[in-house]
């Protein structure tokens, strides 16, 4: 197959909002930020300050993720009997009390997906910074996977919200949200911003060794 040209080498810019193919302003044409002629969005050769922004958001998300797991996310009180649930204890309860299938789904959404996001984005940031050409296609797929499944982590937040609204039987039974759920919600939002700040085109920058 012939060599695949990249927009950068041809002096072109792709608008990532509307997909329009635009000519990049040449050197010495002023510092004006180019805008897409079709949709008016700002055009970037690569997204600005990728490493700084993505690392910052990722670290912030991780700092939120620790209390999200350590602190309880939900309190159930029935007949004076108080029980605080963390994310993990919620999964275990679901597993033990008869719905292993759903427990696996919740486990994936609340534990596996956030961890995968931290590891995947961290790996991508480190390897791209080095200009590594290791497993480029797989890393590109990994990024798309992170983008695709990232927001499903909100699952536990919605479960707590719905149970809080439903279980309101006064003294007999009551569910209250606890601070863990707020931290968890923030983790999800911050990791989503982090993956949006990353630019997958960086995976393909750096020198290209034949057919890797």
């Amino acid at each position, binding site marked *: 197959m012939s060599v695949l040209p990249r927009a950068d080498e041809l002096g072109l810019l792709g608008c*990532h*909002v509307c997909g329009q193919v635009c000519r990049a302003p040449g050197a010495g044409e002023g510092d004006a930020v180019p805008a897409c002629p079709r949709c008016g969005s700002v055009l970037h050769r690569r997204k600005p300050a990728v490493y700084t922004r993505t690392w910052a958001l990722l670290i912030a998300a991780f700092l939120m993720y620790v209390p999200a797991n350590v602190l309880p996310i939900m309190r159930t009180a029935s007949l004076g009997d108080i029980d605080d649930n963390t994310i993990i204890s919620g999964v275990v309860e679901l597993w033990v009390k008869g719905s292993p299938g759903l427990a696996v789904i919740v486990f994936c959404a609340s534990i596996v997906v956030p961890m995968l996001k931290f590891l995947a984005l961290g790996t991508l940031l480190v390897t791209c910074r080095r200009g590594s050409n290791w497993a480029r296609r797989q890393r*590109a*797929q990994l990024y798309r996977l992170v983008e695709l499944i990232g*927001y499903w982590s909100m699952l536990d937040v919605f479960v707590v919200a719905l149970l809080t609204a439903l279980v309101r039987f006064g003294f007999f039974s009551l569910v209250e949200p606890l601070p863990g759920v707020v931290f968890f919600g923030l983790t999800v939002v911050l990791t989503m911003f982090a993956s949006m700040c990353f630019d997958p085109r960086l995976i393909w920058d750096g020198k290209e060794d034949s057919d890797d």
Partner: protein
Amino acid sequence: MDASPSDVAGPDAATHGLLICEHCDTVHRRGPLAHGEMAECARCGAVLERCRGMRADTMLALIVTALVVFAQATLWPIVTLGLNGQYVAATLWDVIHMMWLDHSQVVAVLAAATLYVFPLAKILTLGWLLIYARSGRRAPGFRRLMVALHHFGPWTMSEVFVLGALVSIVKAHLYFDVLPDPGIYAYAVLMLLITVFAGIDLTRLWDETCDEDAEVTP
């Protein structure tokens, strides 16, 4: 590339028919696509473009359905719990309101945005654009709305909420009587519609409509 300086980014003959992969910056020549086909990037494997097997009329009909179902899903109670003859039902609004009162304002705002504001904005925006796109025209505000649609796209989470409702029902079922309410069925239909729309490449609206009402570039 010796384009004149003023021609910083104009669509011209040279760039026409090209397609740049947003994931790896590879330039492709655009080929014709049949209904339901999609083009994949040869370098990174990302989807370049997708040809929906659906006309604007059909999409508009689905969007109107989605609007009706969305209204039902948000206004009607989702489930009712029963304990010792006491019953509590909750609508989406109750969910948001209770989180606000229970010291979890952050969660209340998140839920309101991702389950109410953004999905509704998405449905209304698409409906508005499609009314005009049926005849190949661009709706007033087309440009700004398409850009907005691109930005709030990732923040609609109704489908996650449906799964959340399922998990809540299973959990609540251990201790309470659970009675499904119409809202949960409306959500189920909404989830189907979301799945249908997830497969549609909306950026094609840029190519399929033209600028006849002179929405002049400033």
